[in-house]
């Protein structure tokens, strides 16, 4: 019983703020500015969502939502493809220079991310990608985490199937496509969800490489929304809900993959 009391108190601390903020998005502006604040909306309305969906030239929130979806999905797919191919070579093939190559790739995981920001900006500028979704999709897929994570998983797969297939005359592409990938569905799902989440939530990179409101994703968009609507909290919260609910749903559906993936890679790393 004591355990549940503690857990419930903690649950209120963690979920309470989320529920209250969700409630504010359904309040009228008058009720949201009422002192003392109401716990839940007394006269629920969706007018804040109306404002958000309608948008303005400076705050095209639905467009941001679409951009976020395109960027996160594109990034996720690209990361899955390039990381799984590279991880297969590093886990299953022999070639000169393999060890130092893997060492360099993993070594970059130890370099703090902010070191890359300014030179990456200059490179993305040279490629002509500034102020476009390409800048949000491609560079992030070069991160070493996916390669490291999948390589560890591939190493744990039994080699007998590969060897049998090799004897049957299959080439490595067949083995990768027909044996390794199907056996790695949990790892691929984990990497897919983690890549999607990190791109969907990314704030620091898009605020510097995107300049036009029409190419913003939701996180930088929300900071614009906050500036534009100052204390129109129902509108700001409706924007936050739009950015938060999809990832909370995704998380609730894939909780096992996300948490196992994070705890395993954290410990083995």
């Amino acid at each position: 019983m004591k355990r549940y009391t503690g857990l419930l108190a903690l649950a209120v601390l963690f979920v309470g703020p989320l529920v209250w903020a969700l409630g504010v998005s359904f309040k009228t502006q008058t009720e949201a500015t009422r002192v003392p604040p109401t716990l839940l909306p007394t006269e629920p309305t969706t007018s804040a969502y109306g404002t958000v969906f309608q948008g303005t030239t400076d705050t095209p929130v639905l467009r941001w939502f679409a951009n976020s979806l395109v960027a996160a999905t594109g990034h996720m797919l690209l990361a899955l493809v390039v990381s799984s191919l590279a991880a297969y070579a590093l886990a299953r093939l022999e070639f000169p220079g393999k060890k130092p190559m893997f060492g360099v790739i993993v070594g970059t995981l130890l370099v703090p991310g902010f070191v890359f920001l300014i030179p990456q900006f200059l490179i993305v500028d040279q490629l002509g990608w500034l102020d476009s979704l390409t800048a949000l999709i491609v560079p992030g897929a070069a991160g070493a985490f996916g390669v490291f994570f999948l390589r560890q998983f591939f190493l744990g797969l039994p080699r007998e199937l590969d060897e049998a297939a090799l004897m049957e005359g299959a080439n490595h592409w067949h083995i990768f496509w027909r044996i390794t990938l199907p056996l790695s569905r949990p790892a691929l799902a984990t990497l897919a969800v983690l890549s999607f989440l990190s791109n969907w939530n990314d704030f620091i990179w898009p605020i510097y490489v995107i300049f036009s409101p029409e190419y913003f994703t939701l996180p930088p968009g929300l900071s614009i929304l906050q500036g534009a609507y100052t204390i129109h909290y129902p509108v700001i919260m409706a924007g936050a809900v739009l950015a938060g609910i999809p990832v909370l749903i995704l998380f609730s559906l894939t909780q096992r993959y996300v948490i196992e993936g994070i705890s395993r890679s954290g410990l083995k790393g």
Partner: protein
Amino acid sequence: MVAISAEETLEREVRVPRSGKATPYLFLAPYLILFSVFVLAPALFGIWVSLHDWDYLLEGKPFVGLDNYTALFDGQSPVSGDFWMSMRATGIFTVFSVPFLVVLPLGVALLLNRPFRGRTLFRGLFFAPFVLGVAVVCLMWRLLLDPNLGLVDWILGTPIPWTTATPWAWIALVGVTVWWTLGFNAVIYLAGMQDIPRELYDAAKVDGAGRWGEFVHVTLPGLRPVALFVVTTTILASANMFGQSYLLTQGAPGGETRTAIMYMLQQGLREYKMGSASAMSYLLTLLLILVSVANFRLLRTRP
């Protein structure tokens, strides 16, 4: 796979994989191209940039040697005052957030460690804030901490300038960060606890250890490698702090809560003084390496 030629039979016998020398590189090529352009090149290019007076908007980018680095230590230079103030902000934030983020998640993990009904649900609830982005979290907490309209001050019964005055701004930044990322560390601890062999607990029971004895003599020592990981990653994450200051306090009051990353990016990507900003990023990296090494030695060698 139906007809096997003589050549293939031979291959089968000596078990040579049917792949050319190029195969590994074909698998690696797409990733290596991205990796070279967006990870390797920037890491090296950044050093080059830091050795120049690199103004993005100007044509000439003269070589200045280590001037960008020495300027950070020269009290007369225009950047050093603001830079060290921002380093101080990052330092304050790290010193106050790391202990909470190392200890509190351990408590939460202990609560979740034994099997009970609803365990997965509670684990998910505590982890949930972490899947939200910094923008959503900070917008939400700006409202919750609004001195007039927020729930927090209504519960406390007094208006507190959470985002506009110190020490309140620090408490808000640390508190929101703890709320946001506690679940991540708890999940890491929890995985570490599940790797501790059950026999050790049974042995402790035989020796007459109570719950506290078990915790001190079995759980804590068993968690040493995990704790090292948690402490290191939490220090790095705190030193990387950017979004919370940017969105919650906007550096207020008077730049006191403007962190090193925030100042570096303002110099580099708003005022386009990229040489100076790159120098800052490498100096901060060097400091983080020193902290990580010290931390590793401290936690690893204790008996």
